[in-house]
């Protein structure tokens, strides 16, 4: 792998850019791998990357039904934060945020991580108490957040209307080191690094069956033939239920649509991310100037990657009161992704009933921000066969034992 650098740009400028190589190889699958990772989204690629980097396991295939990073990795609103109430959530999301900070240097790929700050508005008295509690919990967890006044909110985001008749801004939970990153670059950066370590990323290769003998997986059947493996990692978000069905177990997961939309580009007007959980809306401004708006998830099972109009209306109606200046913006695009929701709205990084198979799913509406931390914890689980400290609390057994990590109470919908 040739390194990207300012020198490389100068060198290529002098020879008409003929020296750039492909960022990753597209090989045909081998007959056997030590580890097969199903799903080449952010989480799957991060799992493969940290298996190689932290544990020296490089005989890995990452199988992808569509194209690399074409699922929820390319369909989110790129918000990165770690201001969670529960200790296990704060630990893994903070690990993730800290890995995002060094992503570009670590992988030699510009992720455009921008620690611009994330502000979660408190618009009811209940939310004030909730966010103050989160701020106190974050102090104990070592996550830097603070509860700020409406005046401070107005100072940080001048375009906000803090005196709305229905949704006045009563304060906010402010995490200055949170922010956003370029979502495609995360998938592409991991893919390039994995390929450079000798891993095979195989796109347009749909897994159609999981073969097992005596409680142990021996390989998978795919649209490109049979592939054997010693260990299997399932990292497929919305379609986890189908893969689990092939492997012969069930999951506490329901797949629903979550949608987002962007406006026409305008001049810079807001340099942080604002989330308003009471009204299920959040907004930030992309580097191109578009206002990126995310809404709430639909309440019914759906695999169509499109959401409902009335959710858009609800989200935009509420945001227009909080940000009056967006009322005349034209919306350019809307899209939906299929998110995998668990009963307690926290993820699953777990062993399965099959001895050498592991699953990472259930990130629901909080998948993008967790990519590096999730890959880090999943790699440890796959390499050692037992979860490390980051993943220990996220096992499937928590549903039987009633040991929930109940972020749905703490975070509401925008999670």
């Amino acid at each position: 792998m040739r390194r990207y650098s300012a020198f490389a740009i100068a060198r290529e400028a002098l020879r008409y850019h003929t020296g750039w190589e492909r960022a990753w190889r597209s090989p045909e699958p081998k007959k056997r791998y030590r580890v097969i990772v199903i799903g080449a989204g952010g989480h799957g690629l991060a799992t493969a990357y940290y298996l190689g980097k932290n544990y020296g396991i490089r005989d890995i295939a990452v199988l992808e039904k569509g194209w690399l990073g074409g699922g929820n990795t390319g369909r989110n609103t790129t918000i990165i934060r770690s201001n969670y109430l529960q200790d296990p959530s704060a630990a893994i999301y903070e690990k993730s945020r800290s890995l995002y900070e060094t992503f570009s240097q670590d992988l030699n790929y510009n992720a455009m991580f921008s620690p611009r700050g994330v502000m979660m508005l408190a618009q009811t008295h209940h939310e004030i108490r909730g966010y103050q509690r989160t701020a106190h919990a974050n102090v104990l967890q070592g996550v830097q957040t603070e509860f700020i006044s409406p005046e401070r909110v107005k100072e940080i985001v001048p375009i906000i209307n803090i005196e709305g008749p229905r949704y006045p801004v009563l304060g906010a939970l402010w995490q200055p080191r949170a922010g956003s990153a370029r979502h495609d670059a995360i998938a592409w950066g991991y893919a390039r690094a994995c390929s450079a370590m000798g891993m095979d990323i195989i796109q347009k290769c749909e897994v159609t069956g999981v073969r097992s003998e005596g409680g142990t997986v021996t390989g998978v059947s795919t649209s490109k033939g049979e592939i054997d493996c010693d260990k299997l990692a399932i990292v497929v978000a919305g379609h986890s239920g189908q893969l689990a069905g092939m492997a012969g177990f069930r999951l506490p997961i329901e797949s629903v649509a979550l949608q987002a939309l962007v406006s026409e580009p305008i001049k810079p007007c807001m340099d942080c991310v604002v989330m308003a959980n009471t009204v299920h809306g959040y907004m930030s401004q992309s580097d191109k100037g578009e206002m990126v708006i995310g809404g709430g998830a639909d309440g019914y099972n759906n695999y169509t990657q499109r959401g409902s109009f009335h959710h858009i209306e609800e989200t935009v109606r509420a945001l227009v009161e909080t940000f009056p200046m967006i009322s005349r913006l034209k919306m350019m695009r809307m899209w939906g992704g299929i998110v995998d929701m668990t009963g307690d709205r926290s993820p699953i990084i777990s062993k399965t009933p099959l001895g050498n198979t592991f699953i990472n799913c259930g990130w629901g509406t909080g998948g993008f921000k967790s990519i590096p931390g999730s890959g880090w914890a999943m790699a440890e689980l796959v390499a050692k066969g037992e979860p490390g400290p980051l993943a220990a609390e996220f096992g499937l057994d928590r549903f039987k034992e009633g040991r929930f990590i109940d972020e749905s109470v703490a975070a509401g919908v925008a999670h």
Partner: protein
Amino acid sequence: MLILQCPYCGIKCDETELAPGGEAHLKRYGPGSTDEEFEAYLFERKNPLGVHFERWRHANGCGKWFLAARSTTTLEVFGTYKAQTTEPPAEIVAAIKAKLPDWEGRQ
């Protein structure tokens, strides 16, 4: 936008009038059941890629719970029926089979 006909009041309502209630025909387990049965009842869902039987409430209307058969891949609605059933009625199954001959039935 989803449009479902309430089988009680007969109104064809769009989804803003309705509240979704998750998978239908769950077998309830309570005291005396095993941990596995109770866990499955509370959390495990079929979450099918295709025909889904589900509960809805006509929240901004007559207020009653009813059931619907709907495809999760096309959002097509095959029919709605009253909630006082333990499995989908024959005419709903026939309507699904007419549209999807390969459908393997409720798993």
